């Protein structure tokens, strides 16, 4: 498991990419929902 997370020493770059992508998707869905509530 820790070997998987380490990504051969590239963990920061790989998870930094996937993490921010997941965050952006969550934020977009959150903003869509809140805008829908207001409309």
């Amino acid at each position: 498991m820790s070997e998987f997370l380490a990504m051969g020493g590239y963990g920061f770059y790989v998870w930094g990419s996937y993490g921010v992508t997941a965050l952006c998707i969550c934020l977009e869905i959150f903003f869509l929902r809140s805008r829908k509530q207001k409309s």
Partner: protein
Amino acid sequence: MTSDLFRFAAPQAFFPIAGKLIPWFSILAGLLAIAGLYVAFFVAPTDATQGESYRIIFIHVPAAWMSMFIYVVMAGWAGLGLALNTRLSGMMSSALAPTGAMFTFLALWTGALWGKPTWGTYWVWDARLTSELVLLFLYLGFIALKQAIPDPVRADRAGAILALVGVVNVPIIYFSVQWWNTLHQGASVSLTRAPAMAATMLLGMLLMALAAWMYSIATALARVRTIILERERDAEWVRLQRAAA
């Protein structure tokens, strides 16, 4: 046939159809992303030269494709609205812009995180990176311009002109790696050449690209429904819709 097409161009007719389609595109996006991530992390082999860092490709390439494709579709809707004065067109272009901007940001962000281990730098002012950054500013400019103009008809027109002028940037991004000497590599996927990567890597990338497509359609439809409600606030059918909801 034409009359049918124009019937769905009315926000009132499009609203319920979009609502029915959103769950399907969302489910497809989720399933494709799960399959894509599985292939990306557990099936695709370690790259011989880049090690595990190349796994960023499964987000980077789909995000970059979507950033350009959404812009073209957005400009297409904007242009259609300018030419035919259809009400829905301007709303569709507004609905696509935030998702397009998000994918442009992600293409730049993942590119920076991939650039550091492979090129030794997060950022260079080379043709591909700079033109993609210009695309982000075009999206943000389009959103800001439309929000700055209170009258939706005038906002749609001004936005459409900006979107159409900016569309010249898309082929510049795409062909930048051929036209200029850039640090960024050329296209890995081509319809005319054999793929330059392992079949499983290509499969993972295509699954993630399809997931990004489905996600974009779902979010654009959800956003256009909200925009329709905002703009047609005083219409009788919207009041009935609200009362029923």
